[in-house]
């Protein structure tokens, strides 16, 4: 039997809300699939479209971005910038032949360990259902 497909997911999480929410999920001993490797930024507004595309080029099957709820950004409006950027990135992804559902932006606050668990579980299952990302060789990172 062939190996079950295990999605590889890059997570960009903000320090103040989503990473704290992920910490709370841990403190509360929730469980969720281990497929996402979190990278903590100060703010979701630091996520540059090229980081997302770079993740796909480097072999990610999905990219997750977690920020503070609208109005709650520790840096006032970083999450709004992300909110505006994501549709633009999705358009680029469509042009590149990457299904836009492979990118997910969610607002997870520091008190939402439960939501973090649910969102990650659901996203991993969704990507598992979509199968591996098949990028044309020229778009893949050659290292």
């Amino acid at each position, binding site marked *: 039997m062939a190996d079950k497909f295990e999605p590889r997911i890059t997570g960009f999480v903000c320090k103040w809300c989503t990473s704290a929410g992920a910490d709370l999920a*841990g403190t509360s*001993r929730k469980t969720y699939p281990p497929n996402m490797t979190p990278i903590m930024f100060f703010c979701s507004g630091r996520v540059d479209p090229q980081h997302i595309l770079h993740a796909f080029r480097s072999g990610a099957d999905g990219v997750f971005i977690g920020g503070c709820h609208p109005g709650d950004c520790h840096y006032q409006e970083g999450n709004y910038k992300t909110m505006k950027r994501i549709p633009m990135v999705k358009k680029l992804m469509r042009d590149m032949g990457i299904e836009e559902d492979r990118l997910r932006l969610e607002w997870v606050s520091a008190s939402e360990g439960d939501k973090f668990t649910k969102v990650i579980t659901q996203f991993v299952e969704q990507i598992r259902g979509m199968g591996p990302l098949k990028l044309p060789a020229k778009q893949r990172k050659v290292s």
Partner: protein
Amino acid sequence: MNKRIGVVVCHCGINIAGVVKIPEVLETIKTLPGVAAVRDHMYCCSDPGQNMIKDLTKSEKLDAVVVACCSPTLHESTFRKAVKSVGLNPYLCEIANIREQCSWVTPDRDEATKKAIRIIRTQVARARWDQPLEPIDVPVTRRAMVVGGGVAGIQAALDIANAGYEVVLVEKDPSIGGHMAQLSETFPTLDCSQCILTPKMVEAYQHPKIKLLTYSEVADVSGYVGNFKVKVRRKPAYIDWDVCNGCGQCLVKCPGRKESEFDRGMSKRKAVYRPFPQAVPNRPVIDASICVHFKTGRCSICADVCPLKAIRYDQKESFVEESVGAIVIATGFELYDLKDYSSFGVGKTQDVIDGLQFERILSASGPTSGEVKRPSDGKVPKRVVFVQCAGSRDVENGKPYCSKICCMYTAKHAMLYKHRVHDGDAIVFYIDVRTGGKGFEEFYKRATDEGVLYVRGKVSKIYRQGDKVVVWGADTLTGQKVQVEADMVVLANAMTPTPESAELAGVLKAQRDEHGFFNEAHPKLRPVETLTAGYFLAGAGQGPKDIPEAVAQASGAACKVIGLFSNKTLSHDPPIAGIDEDACSGCGVCVDVCPYGARELVEKDVKGKMKKVIKVNEVLCECCGACSSACPVAACEQRNLKDEQIQEMVEAGLEG
């Protein structure tokens, strides 16, 4: 870039090692480029653990250290201090969170081990690029603001002021005092609430170091710890408080009428009013929404009778800006509005009242001068039912949490009722009686000894029938349904944050929990701080608490503020976004995206050529990185989180 990186993996007892296979992790990590040494330890945060990290840093001549352990919010500063003590720049120490975000959430040992390796690998990639950074020294404004003038806010203000620092105390209502001023007597000693509170109110008012801004709200906050600029909105009182001497002539003649907020709707106040006779400052305000002058222009009686001509109908709201170094959030609580709650008859019959209304009835200064009379007809109620957990501990319809103070104040209410109406019946419906506190159990025992009847069970319905208020409930000890015909019902409503605290949280960017209470930085070890440096918490705005707890937390918050003010300068986080002047095209995009105004365009000589480039005000930069992701030419670089660094971290997290 030929760094020697050391990786130390913490077992955290069995918290990490019970799931993550540490030897496998070490085997893999030691093969990574740049990794010069790997170690593990049972508890890295312990003294021997820290010493091991220090020794390793020295003996292996490490250029960077990655500690794989718990969340960076817990021990990042611990390990950075440790490496600093042996001469390594603290910003060359990174944390890989393999506990909260790995071992605790991944039950499968193989999967947890793989994820731990991926997380450590990203941090090693990060460390490979890390540069030594120096904290930026910024001066501290040794002046505090306290938001909320209840007992917690007053205590915090007094403690800070008595230590010699100036305090600005902001209160939304015309008077300080908060809910404690409404209470009759306090448990478990039954001392008069106003008698112990009003001296503190007056002390705060007269204190030379305290500036009182009542009838005011925080409109905007900018800056950072040690250097906040707070814009305070002063609502128009329509009276010049500097001229007014509080004589009260205006209060006598005013024709406007409205339910008194202070008496919780059980008495009337005028359009020009002070909330209660002992108000501090003793200055009235005009409520324009019911004032005849504002509605029709045909009344100016207060202006006519004022001997000092202090009435100003044309007064407008104004703003003052205060510079402070720390802010104490003491916004207090409100009672949960039970109007839509199950079938408690709230709002339908006047004789179902909340705990604060009963406090006003019991208060000597209240609408009945302390005589127990029910609101509908003024009769002395011969049977009063007290309903605990009205909205608390109700996951489905109300608030899931325990409001903590209701068991004690209900015992007090029932007891005080029995003291005033000797032949009356006091019946308490409860789920559990919780008496954790000094003298609390004895106080509850005293209530039962004095003849208060406790029925264990919830109330399902309350309705009016003729002259009576009928209470349906259950006695879960006997398994019987209970129906009581009472003359009055007192509900122990759940405590909630004040509605204004939501707006304040938005202005402050302070974090709140799912119920709207302000979040402390750590539930056990940092209970008066918040995750935002410079904000501190006091009182029931952080969670339900009684007076002694609110006061203790206020003194704790004050102590933290005083500690902060003992520094001449503070160090500002250095992972700020700099500028590559060669690459900068002077487009100014980052100027617009920076929420702190930390970037400006200047004309500058760059390598013998005059050009427009960005100048970064390092002290204002808060390290969010918005400019870095907005810059079209990659000239804005967030220190130790550069684009190349992030790309390598992304790749590292996807390997294996």
